């Protein structure tokens, strides 16, 4: 197995693009492409529309719009096979086209990420399985950034915790197997949470099956199967369930706040043109747009938010408090750069300046966009309501008496702030203090259904099922550190707050020394857990000294799992595990001597159930501290924030008459 020089992100991007184009090439002539909504964004991340056109794609339709027409003989569907609703939609549309068209269509379906038995039987039921060409596009991880791989399964949060459907864990396992097949086995799998355990078990099982499948009947054991990887240190799996609290807080990094206010999907944000100006930029942003039909309203503009925008990479992980400063600095630098044109005397100097002009212009555009965006966000963050919400959140996070905040929540309800906000606050309280008092819960239920409609009875049922909002069963057991015999069924924030030092009082947003800067003083539990694995000395000094001054020593030695934190970690919900994947010792040693011990090792951190931008920022902060000894690759099922968590539960129907 030759090591691949390219990063995972580049490799995946390249491979998926090639796979897709090969499939398209296989359909002769011009074709119409039908995409499901959720795939359109993902596909847009690695193929430009113009490239699709080169491969004969005439028009692109969205599956959800059910408007694909007979303008081309070839119709290609690119749809998730795991979602039976979409599969049914495909079957229906094919039948519709077959019925009413006078064109004899040639149908192809590319199932993402694999052809499923269920999709087969649905097509069979519809009686069209013989009329379509079926292929697979194995799209598992979508690289969002060089260090972020996402499965982009938007429903994964609801599936996992509301419907208890662990399908995304299976897909995650498949995706991780792909990495293992490229680099060799994760030498160690460390994780927290029941679903994480499940994912690890799946990985172990798949490895066993792979061994059974791929290997030969040869007696020589070394020649077959995979070995533990030499370039990977470990895989850390964190179940979202372990730390529901963190994503419920309002994210305070720049990217996090954009996600909270306008929403970021597939690295793009739909921003009002009133805020960022009309789409006048023909390069950069536009060309990489997803292949989507032209927006009808014309009032929204897609802003590409990724590392291709230099300014954004500078801003994204910073606390919003200092974004203004950075923007000012950049503006001033740009101006002074511009001024150099006066200083240019010789023609060569002038030519140099002209050569740089396009970069200046690009920077200028990006500066304008981000200034406007930051101002818009600022308008929001300055508002009375926002500050009130933040106040409530921070008091919960700090562990103050939650009942003090109830009045504020009542007021917010009466002032008709969005339902998601209210629910986030209630869930936050429930998570942080082990449930609401039954009396309070009843009170808020009544308040909410009166204010937002009785259909939210269902919303509350869903939230309870997800264990996000619960009555406090017996307060006493929860406030004590759980006894070492049992693993907690709930995360005990009160205990962990102290023992993992979640609240950091004086945090400098300007020059942060701890990950707590991302929430202006609250360190995400999920990341603290990762630190327990990767930065043991730092965590120990934090807990012992309680001082924030100690910087993590980069010389932290190899991490044998949870060692040293077993007891603390037990207070978080779900099972705790650390599995060593053994291989043939001799081969491992041989590899080690070959590759040398001081090479950079990669740590994969997988967030099952979603990750927030703030957590990504915090992980990048860790990665910067660990470089160059370690590289952290962040994997997740989807990008999450509190609103999306609530959306999974909120009932969308109303009692209004439907037309």
């Amino acid at each position, binding site marked *: 197995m030759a090591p691949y020089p390219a990063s995972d992100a580049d490799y995946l991007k390249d491979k998926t693009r090639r796979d897709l184009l090969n499939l398209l*090439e296989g359909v*002769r*002539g011009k074709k119409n492409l039908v995409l499901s909504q959720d795939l359109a964004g993902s596909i847009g991340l690695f193929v430009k529309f113009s490239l699709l056109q080169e491969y004969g794609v005439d028009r692109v339709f969205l599956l959800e719009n059910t408007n694909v027409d007979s303008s081309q*003989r070839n119709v290609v569907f690119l749809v998730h096979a*795991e979602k*039976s609703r979409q599969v049914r939609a495909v079957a229906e549309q094919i039948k519709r086209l077959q019925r009413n068209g006078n064109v004899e269509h040639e149908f192809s379906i590319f199932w993402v990420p694999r052809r*499923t*038995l*269920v999709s087969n*039987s649905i097509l069979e039921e519809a009686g069209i399985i*013989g009329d379509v*060409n*079926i292929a697979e596009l194995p799209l598992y991880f979508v690289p969002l950034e060089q260090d972020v791989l996402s499965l982009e399964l938007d429903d994964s949060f609801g*599936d996992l915790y509301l*419907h*208890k*459907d*662990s*399908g995304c*864990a*299976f897909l995650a396992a498949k995706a991780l197997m792909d990495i293992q097949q490229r680099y060799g086995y994760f030498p160690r799998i460390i994780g927290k949470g029941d679903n994480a355990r499940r994912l690890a*078990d799946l990985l172990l*099982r798949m490895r066993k*099956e792979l*061994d*059974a*499948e*791929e*290997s*030969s*009947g*040869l007696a020589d054991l070394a020649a*077959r199967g995979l070995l533990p990887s030499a370039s990977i240190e470990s895989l850390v799996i964190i179940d979202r369930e372990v730390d529901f609290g963190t994503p419920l807080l309002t994210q305070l990094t720049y990217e996090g706040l954009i996600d909270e206010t306008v929403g970021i999907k597939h690295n793009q944000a739909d921003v009002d043109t009133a805020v960022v100006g009309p789409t006048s930029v023909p390069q950069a942003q536009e060309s990489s747009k997803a292949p989507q039909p032209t927006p009808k309203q014309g009032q929204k503009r897609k802003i590409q938010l990724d590392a291709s925008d230099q300014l954004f990479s500078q801003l994204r992980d910073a606390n919003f408090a200092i974004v203004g400063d950075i923007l000012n600095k950049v503006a001033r630098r740009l101006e002074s750069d511009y001024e150099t044109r006066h200083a240019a005397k010789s023609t060569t100097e002038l030519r140099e300046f002209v050569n740089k002009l396009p970069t200046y212009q690009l920077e200028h555009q990006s500066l304008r966009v981000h200034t406007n965006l930051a101002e818009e966000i600022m308008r929001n963050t300055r508002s009375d309501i926002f500050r009130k919400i933040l106040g409530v959140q921070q008091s919960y996070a700090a562990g103050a008496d939650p009942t003090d905040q109830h009045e504020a929540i*009542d*007021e917010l309800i*009466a*002032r*008709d702030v969005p339902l998601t906000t209210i629910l986030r606050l209630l869930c936050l309280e429930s998570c942080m203090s082990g449930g609401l008092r*039954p009396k309070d819960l*009843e009170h808020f*239920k009544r*308040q909410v*259904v*009166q*204010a*937002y*409609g*009785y*259909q939210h*009875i*269902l919303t509350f*049922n869903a939230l*309870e099922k997800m264990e996000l909002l619960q009555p406090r069963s017996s307060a006493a057991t929860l406030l004590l550190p759980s006894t070492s015999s049992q693993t907690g069924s709930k995360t005990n924030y009160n205990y962990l707050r102290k023992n993992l030092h979640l609240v950091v009082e004086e945090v400098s947003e300007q020059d942060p020394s701890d990950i707590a800067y991302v929430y202006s003083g609250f360190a995400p539990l999920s990341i603290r857990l990762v630190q327990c694995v990767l930065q043991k000395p730092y965590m120990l000094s934090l807990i012992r000294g309680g001082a924030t001054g100690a910087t993590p020593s980069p010389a932290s030695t190899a991490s044998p799992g949870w060692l040293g934190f077993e007891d603390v970690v037990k207070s978080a919900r779900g099972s705790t595990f650390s599995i060593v994947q053994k291989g043939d010792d001799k081969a491992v040693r041989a590899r080690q001597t070959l590759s040398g011990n001081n090479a950079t090792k990669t740590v994969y951190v997988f967030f099952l159930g979603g990750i927030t931008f703030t957590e990504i920022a915090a992980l990048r902060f860790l990665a910067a501290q660990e470089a160059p000894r370690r590289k952290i690759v962040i994997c997740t099922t989807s990008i999450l924030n509190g609103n999306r968590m609530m959306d999974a539960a909120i*009932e969308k*129907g*109303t*009692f*209004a*008459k*439907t037309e």
Partner: protein
Amino acid sequence: MAPSNPLANWERLGDSFYRKVSIYDAVFDDDVELENYIVAGAPYGGALALHRDDSKPHRFRDAQTSKSSIDIYSCSGKHIDRIQWEHGIIRGLGWSDKEELLVITEDGTVRRYFGLHGDFTSFSLGNGSEEYGVRACRFWNAGFVALLSNNQLIAVSNYDEPRPKLLAPCPEGEVSSWSLIPPAHTLSRSVEVLLAVDQTIYQVDPTEAEDKGQQNGPFKHASVSPAGRFVALITAEGKVWVVSSDFQSKYSEYDPESRVTPRTVDWCGDDAVVIAWEDEVHLIGPNGVAARYYYDDAVHVIPEFDGVRLLTNDTCEFLHKVNHVTETIFRLGSTSPASVLLDSIDLLEKKSPKADENIQRIRSSLPEAVDMCIKAAGQEFDPYWQKRLLKAASFGKSVLELYNSDEFVDMTEKLRVLKAVRDYHIGLAISYEQYMRLTPEKLIERLVNRHEYLLAIRISEYLQIPADKIYVHWASQKVKVSTVDDEAVCKLIVQRLEGKPGISFELIAQAAYDEGRAHLATQLLNHEPRAGKQVPLLLNMEEDEIALDKAIESGDNDLVSYVLLHLRSKVPLASFFRMINTRPMASALVETTARAEDTELLKDLYYQDDRPIDGSSVLVSEALNETELPRKLEKLHLASRLMADSKDATVVLQQKLLSESSQLLKVQEALDKDLADRSEFLGLSLNETIYRLIRSGYGKRGQKIQSEFKMPEKTYWWLRLRALVAKRDWGELEEVGKSRKSPIGWEPFYNEILGAGNTKLASIFVPKCTNLSVEDKVEMWVKCGMIVKAGEEAFRAKQVNTLELLRTRASGPASTEIERMINQLRPRN
């Protein structure tokens, strides 16, 4: 045995040489009258299928032989299997490159025989083939095209999931000959067909039939070269033309001087055409030069991509172009370094010092010479010359200081394999190039199909290729043929395969099940390590619960869903529920799918499980989906009835809320009737209803509803404030402001009114905010633009500093006023 002359049977054809290598002798018994048979040969030296040509008369011998059959032979004439044929007239007989035999009958039925021993699958061509009948078929390595009697063409390009597809319709007319271009060599990436109709030729692809505008038809033969670049045609006058495949240019013409149309026209590699009659073969090279071969009895031509196999009763020969490596070494009078190197071997054996001399002479080009000898060894069929050439290479590289011997080792390995399979017992007449293209894995597959397990295992061990498939095939075969009892077979198989990794017991079990040995199948299945693999078979065997458990074990929720789908349609509901009850993953999946597709099932499930809240939730969502109000109310009623008996606190609350919800709907209906001419209130939340009432000036009604629903005062006050501000009802707000106390304080009034832009009214509320600090109040005044009032506030609190600040903001008379206050406060000295 004396070594054969390496130059034997060389034939010069223009610039290059062709040679005919005899591979096997005494191929067929004499009673097989080859001239009366249709012969189809699998590519890469594979098996031969013989079927008696019914159009020719034959001697009646006995009942046995007169029965129609398809016989499968190896190239060396070893009889492999006989397929009794009573399925109608065969219109197409061909092979895929996986050595699957395809038999197409006139009515469009396709039988695909795999594994050489009579196992088959079948499908129908459809598309009118029953009606019109199949006339003929042409094959390529992965598919075929059938020509119907109405000139329609049907292509099948994948045998695993056959999808017969019509090609573009072709014009009427007599098809005199036709041939296909495999998809790999066409622009359309689909198979294309050349159809000689009347005078001309049409090129047909899936979308159109293009007339190539030829005049010299009707063409009696058309044949496309292996790489798809050239087409060989036999014109009406019986001449052979070679043209480019786009028919733009003609390369050569040859007159066979025979009035009989040749039986077959095939390509020998990409440069020469072979035309054959019953007992005569012409090999036509570029520019119309030709070599002729005559035979005593019937000869059959079997095309390969690098040559042709010539088959007679006595011999199996391989006619191919002499590789330039071989040519440079063996050509008469060759002085190439490689040739010299080969000569040195003779000298070396004679212990002549000239050997060294020779080596020194070619020293500079020795590495190339060694390479060449290695390559040439691959081209030889005779082990004597293979050894000779390898010995030369070995000698050569021993002289060299640095030489990478990988290729040498590789070649010896390959030649060993080739020698083993070319043995007449096995009878695979495969050339080196064909072996390279076929790959060792496929070669082993072919051995397995011939039940040559030992050789297959030896080769796979020798080449370090996984051997699991061989074992599985062996075991499946064992299951099929053994007559001993199940336990013994299972024990034998497990014992034999123990410790062999990668064995798919599922396949063996499937074979056992297909043989009707279900018990054996279950036993074997227990040895399968991959849970997922067991599921389909278990379902077939009706071991439903085990199948479900195995599916869950695999963690693949597609598999679980599939099993559930299967079970749902099969078992009664009660036992279905019982099955999923103890399996959380299964019940979660059932719930999820049922929620989207089958709410009745969901209700039953919740009823069975005694989950009243969930059950009523389903009804509530149904109520939301109903369009008419009475239906909505009815569903809500049902929903709350479901929870009637429970005393659980959450249930009680939910029930209470549900009845409130119905109550609100009724109130809203009344409001809609009274106040609005269309549905305006229905479906709003309670808060929104009251807000809208106040905003539209029906404050009284709002208040009534507030008390009806016991809405907290605070909420009501907030709603009224926001509604009045939105209505810009300043008078009413002022009126409200006259009350003594507000449950939400007065600050919100100030903020909201100020936000709406009425500074004057906002200012009224500043003094009422008694619990605020002076600074705040000063700020509030300032926001209203009342600097003087702000000053007074500060003055009262005796804050000079604040006043000083205010002074900078003030202008005109206000500034003098502030000045005055400052002066008053300042101690006079």
